[in-house]
């Protein structure tokens, strides 16, 4: 059983030419390294496996760029069998024809045996390129990969493209959308968030993984990267601030009752309010409310968020019971990857 659940961890595979920025991505997103410091990273010589213990345990495999995975000495089944997404990193500041050629071979090889794998192409290191040039390169990559796959007879393959850079929030947003595709409960979460924001006058709400600042789900309104940054940095603000005063006290005093979770809010001069509430050990809800009346109705917001929290708990409990194999044939009929892998 323990073995089974371990295999059910969605696995992210990071691949691409050497020096394209794969290790920098894992360091910045999962190890909180400053982007400037990634300059000093050594090149990766063996497969680097990172296990993220977060709301969902997933693995990140960082592949050395020079490896040839389809060499017969490699056990492709072992590498690709359970993976959720293959992330292919392309250095946009470099000559990328070789990288594209290898990408298409990889996709074609995968299509035969593991067609369910999402291929995510990160057009990376785009920070220093100007806007026009950036979108030219992006178009070029999409076009060339699409053409090559078409020629090989694969129409509409499972490939998505993202413009990324570790120097801004784009890498977090791209990884968020990669991970969201691997979450079976995503629809439910989005529905819950939609209900919450519509009933509480919120502009946008994100459910964040606290450690990595990747968002697990958001409501279905269009994503605005400014609001994303306000929310993501708000987590930093609150975590940093809390660290300063969260020391063990010799004689802890208390002035009354209080909830267990961290809750925080900030109101601005223009009436805007940012609100954060810890949902469980790994997740927190961050939302922006533009309505000027928000600060007077905080009690109501608290209450709504509390109900959302209960619903969230119910969603994840169910998932846990299912992986435990105790509930069968009941609940949502949508196929869950981990459920399938257990039953076979």
């Amino acid at each position: 059983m323990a073995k089974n659940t371990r295999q059910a961890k969605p696995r992210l595979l990071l691949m691409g030419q050497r020096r394209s920025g794969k290790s920098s991505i894992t360091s910045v997103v999962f190890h909180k390294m400053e982007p400037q410091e990634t300059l000093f990273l050594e090149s990766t010589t063996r497969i680097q496996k990172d296990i993220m213990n977060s709301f969902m345990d997933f693995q990140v495999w960082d592949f050395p760029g020079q490896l040839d995975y389809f060499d017969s000495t490699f056990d492709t089944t072992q590498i690709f069998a359970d993976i959720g997404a293959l992330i292919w990193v392309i250095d946009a500041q470099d000559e990328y024809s070789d990288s594209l050629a290898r990408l298409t071979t990889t996709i074609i090889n995968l299509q035969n045996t593991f067609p369910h794998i999402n291929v995510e192409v990160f057009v990376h290191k785009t920070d220093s390129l100007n806007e026009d040039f950036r979108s030219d390169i992006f178009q070029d990559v999409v076009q060339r990969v699409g053409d090559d796959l078409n020629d090989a007879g694969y129409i509409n393959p499972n490939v998505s493209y993202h413009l990324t850079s570790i120097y801004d929030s784009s890498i977090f947003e791209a990884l968020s959308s990669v991970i969201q595709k691997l979450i079976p409960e995503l629809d439910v979460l989005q529905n819950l968030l939609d209900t919450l924001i519509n009933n509480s006058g919120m502009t946008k709400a994100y459910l964040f993984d606290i450690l990595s600042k990747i968002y697990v789900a958001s409501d279905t309104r269009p994503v605005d990267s400014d609001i994303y940054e306000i929310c993501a940095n708000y987590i930093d603000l609150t975590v940093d601030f809390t660290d300063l005063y969260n020391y063990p006290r010799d004689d802890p005093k208390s002035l009354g009752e209080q909830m267990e979770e961290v809750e925080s809010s900030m109101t601005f001069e223009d009436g805007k309010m940012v609100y954060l509430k810890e949902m469980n050990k790994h997740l927190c809800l961050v939302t922006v409310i533009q309505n000027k009346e928000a600060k007077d109705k905080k009690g109501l917001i608290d209450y709504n968020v509390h109900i959302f929290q209960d619903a969230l708990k119910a969603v994840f409990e169910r998932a846990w019971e299912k992986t435990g194999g105790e509930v069968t044939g009941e609940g949502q009929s949508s196929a869950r990857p981990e459920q399938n892998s257990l039953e076979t």
Partner: protein
Amino acid sequence: MDARKRKKKVLLMGKSGSGKSSMRSIIFSNYVAKDVRRLGATIDVEHSHARFMGNLTLNLWDCGGQDAFMDSYLNSQRENVFTNAQVLIYVFDIESREVDRDLDTYSAVISALKQFSPSAMVFCLVHKMDLVQAEHRERIYEERCRMILTQSDSMSVETFASSIWDQTLYKAWAGIVHKMIPNLSIIERFLRAFAEQISAEEIVLFERSTFLTVTSVDTTAPKSTSEETANPNPDRHERISNIMKSYKHTVAKSTKGPSSSSVSAAGFVLYKVQTPSFNAFLARFTENTYIAVVVPPGEAAFNCAVLNTMMAKGAFLKKTGVEG
């Protein structure tokens, strides 16, 4: 108090390229650390005014540090530059290769200051400390301080290690400004009494636009030793300044409009955080200050503390006469 007296003339000096204008821009003009590389060299003296806590205006003389300018400050403009100076902030570049020459210039400046404003306070910032490897920082800084002190000619000098890349910059400037605020003891007495009223662990007062720490009271400290407090983070106030200012930039970026006005519109009114081990809030207090209050957990008591703080504003103004 007459207006002349409230204006404090602050001389900002040091070798060319040592970082004087960079820190001024970060502290007083809301620059982000990585934006200061756009600044050009300061030509001659740039004057600027920084209002601080309403009744204290800093008249900053940012003195370009190239040799030719230095010469003219020390000779032809000597009297003009050095008379009536309340504060001299002298910046040393830790990376400088001509330490002896820097010290010579410094001692020339000190003697000029002694001649025209003998009562001025002198603060020396050993700057760009981020360029020194962390394990050597302490030692190199102390060595440098000793050299500075030997050249200071019996003026009272305070030294700070600083870097624009972390909270040490705020620590240094808060230390400087702290010395200049009038009525400081009255403010502190008021805050201490208030802290006891609302059972606060700590109260910190910040200046509004710079977010520099004005003063703080900590009730967890044993009465005998005022330095030692229960909190294991001695640099927490500077860190708060740093954290709050960087978040302000995030918000300002998204508030569309000309950058200078959006930064002020991005100012927050109230920040609250409730955790199982403490509750805290940071709120706009008076026209020119923010107040940070840390209290033990307890939801009802926390909400009361927020309300009480807002109501204490009037009493604070009346008692301390800070904003006139």
